[in-house]
């Protein structure tokens, strides 16, 4: 019975393959024709350039370095540049096969290897959905819950004149102050935008044809207002395809391996300190408790469980395990009075809880860093006697 089903499935699968490939070639950007796929299966060299181009298009919005040509720029980069970019991006994503790295850079060979690479990308993650999400029109008022999409997009490179020459530390202080002020401005603007959104949502309640949404989004309301002016045909075209806000993507320090060594040093130091603190206490405890009876074992077990729970919670704080349960990607904001417990969609209250716990974790990290700085500075300053350091109040 099982065997027969397998055979039937395989037969069904074989029949479905041409359709699937046709669909794939339609949906992929710069999609090669199904004929190219077939030729690539047989490793024909003429299929290679198309596949290099396809991989370049698919990987370029995801690649971090600005070497990929954005659509806004002029002509697409040369074949060699495309090949190099694809190779480096695949390698950094962990593509296992070495054969790809050894393909010639003129892009003339290796179509079967490229087909394998495409299959690997498709198998690893929701590639098609991600491509779709990048190009779709955003109809709703979206709020990105997780920043991974925004991080994946490099954003336009900003040409900046680097400050040559030494600066005074007061310049740095000034820049920090400017940054703080900008954040404050940002927060107030954001609050205003939320208030306006709330108003628009409540004013347009009942207008949307989709029951579950119930009201219009800003884009849809704008659609109506602009359509009023008679530009209805072009209205859908004006919906902005990319409305997500970029997050702060930190610049890479020039020494990448330094982070690893730093973490290793810190962890080892921590381990030493913990051992130094725990061992004597254990010895002392054993010495005291040695003679105590079995009634302690239940209490001990309870303590162990409690501590275990605390430590597990601590571990969760950095492991972001909880984030997996939360869908990432942008969510459409919908104002709903009932807060009905049934029905699809996240509730803002839950999201707020998750964000608060994450905020607590980040605050703890920042506090800890500042404390370490303070200790280090105290140590350095203590080398100079004859000075009194008065710390600022209100900590």
């Amino acid at each position, binding site marked *: 019975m099982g065997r027969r089903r397998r055979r039937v499935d395989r037969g069904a699968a074989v029949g479905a393959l041409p359709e699937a490939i046709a669909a794939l070639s339609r949906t992929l950007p710069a999609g090669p024709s199904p004929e190219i796929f077939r030729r690539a299966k047989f490793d024909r060299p003429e299929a290679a350039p198309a596949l290099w181009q396809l991989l370049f298009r698919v990987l370029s919005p995801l690649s971090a370095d600005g070497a990929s040509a954005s659509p806004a720029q002029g002509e697409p980069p040369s074949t060699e540049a495309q090949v190099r970019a694809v190779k480096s991006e695949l390698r950094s994503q962990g593509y296992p096969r070495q054969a790809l790295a050894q393909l010639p850079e003129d892009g003339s060979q290796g179509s079967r290897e490229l087909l394998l690479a495409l299959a690997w990308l498709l198998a690893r993650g929701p590639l098609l959905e991600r491509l779709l999400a990048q190009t779709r029109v955003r109809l709703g008022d979206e709020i990105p819950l997780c920043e991974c999409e925004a991080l994946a997009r490099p954003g336009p490179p900003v040409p900046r004149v680097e400050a040559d020459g030494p600066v005074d530390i007061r310049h740095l202080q000034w820049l920090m102050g400017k940054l703080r002020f900008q954040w404050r401005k940002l*927060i107030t603007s954001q609050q205003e935008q939320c208030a306006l959104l709330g108003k628009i949502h409540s004013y347009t309640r009942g207008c949307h044809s989709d029951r579950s949404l119930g009201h219009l989004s800003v884009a849809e309301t704008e659609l109506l207002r602009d359509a009023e002016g008679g530009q209805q045909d072009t209205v859908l075209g004006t919906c902005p395809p990319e409305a997500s806000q970029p997050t702060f993507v930190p610049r890479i320090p020039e020494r990448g391996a330094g982070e690893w060594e730093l973490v290793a040093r810190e962890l080892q130091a921590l381990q030493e300190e913990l051992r130094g603190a725990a061992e004597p206490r254990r010895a002392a405890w054993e010495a005291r408790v040695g003679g105590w009876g079995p009634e302690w074992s239940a209490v001990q077990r309870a303590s162990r469980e409690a501590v275990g729970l605390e*430590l597990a919670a601590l571990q969760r704080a950095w492991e972001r395990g909880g984030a997996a349960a939360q869908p990432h990607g942008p969510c459409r904001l919908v104002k709903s009075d009932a807060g009905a417990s049934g029905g699809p969609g996240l509730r803002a209250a839950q999201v707020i809880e998750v964000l608060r716990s994450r905020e607590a974790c980040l605050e703890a990290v920042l506090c800890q860093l500042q404390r370490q700085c303070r200790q280090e500075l105290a140590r350095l300053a203590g080398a100079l006697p004859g000075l009194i350091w008065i710390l600022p109040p209100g900590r």
Partner: protein
Amino acid sequence: MLPADCSRRLVAELRDALDACAERQRQLERSLRVSRRLLRTWEPAETPAPQPTPAPETSGEAPSPESTPSSQDLKELELLTQALEKAVRVRKGISKTGERHKALSLKSGSAATSATTASAPSRPSGQASCRVSETKPPRGIQQTVVPARGLPESRLLSVGDRTHMGRGSRATKPGPGPRDQQIPPSAALQAPEAFTLKEKGADVDCWLPQPLWKPCSGLEGGSPQSAASLSTGFPDRILLRLPMAYRKAASRNSRLWAQLSSAQTSDSMDAAATAKTQFLQKMQMTSGGPGSGLSAAAVEAEVGLLRTACLLLRRRMEEVLSADPADCMQEYRCLLTLEGLQAITEQCLHRLQELRAVVGRQLGPWPVGRRPGASLPCGGGTDPLWSPQLLLYSSTQELQTLEALRLRLAMLDQQIHLEKVLMAELLPLVGTQGPHWLALCRAVHSLLCEGGERFLTVLRDEPAD
């Protein structure tokens, strides 16, 4: 003065941070402009809105003298109450046509504008009729209010004209039947795709049952301003309808997304998932080595996580060590906590060594010049639900809290990164004594330990003599 390369790096980092902030601000301001423009037509806060209540007239309503509005308002209120009662009866009534006549008579009693007279001769289809008749009284109410207040005709017509013009420009579009038989104030209704501006009914009772309002479109000549300013318990809401083409496309879109997500939960997805994992494993094996399949970015991200772990573990350790255990149980718990922390630290170290090995073996020299988190795991790849999920919020405050938290998280991320960078660059400088060391020390302390917000004071400890 700081050394040149250090300055360059730090200034670049801070400028990056400022640019990211400025980019967010630009996008926010763009959204703000759009939202403000949309709301301006509904809430002309600057221009004085006509007040129907006996409250003192705001400036700008020229024609009627001060005494007349009050008596007119009283009359208005009476008519309003009557109409409201009628509306409630209509809602519960059975005969639709009778109501329509009633509504018409109500309207004829008022100084109707040209917009309303046009609605009389139309004959709505069956479906639209019940809808229309139910909305008639509210519309009638609105019609009585508006002219009685002496609202300049121009304003009413200007709104109507706007809709007229809008509709006229789409006159070329063909329309389905029932549309033509609406009771729009504008007789010039040609295009079915006209979205309709309609005032909301009196109160909750007058809300139409949901399935009914869809096919209808009774166009009001009412101005949104008057809707917003009606203070007789009318919810100030406007009914806009999206164009037909858009609605069709949107419903098809959501149907396809629903299909996609339902297809993902079927059994075939499990088979597909196992096939995928098998394929990936085979790829891994044939590559000639047991790699872990980790990308360079994932490795970097994990190292970052381990650094955070180290900080949090150390913080917990300091808390435990500084607490004075009051009794045996607390002592025991301290001991257990310390040992537990030690175990976790060892796990982290072990994991770090593994990552080092992965990098060395598989990815070549440590990758530099990459943005971290470019393909951040983030639970990614497991649940490809990329259809836009809904996020339901119940009040503006909730939304503001949510957004404020998101911003705060972004700010904290940025602060932590800057803190690490500044630590790495500035602490070594303080270690080497140079000119103006005290000033440097003070500035570094403020930047690193107080976020640049507070300063400490240094006093020279002069001997008493």
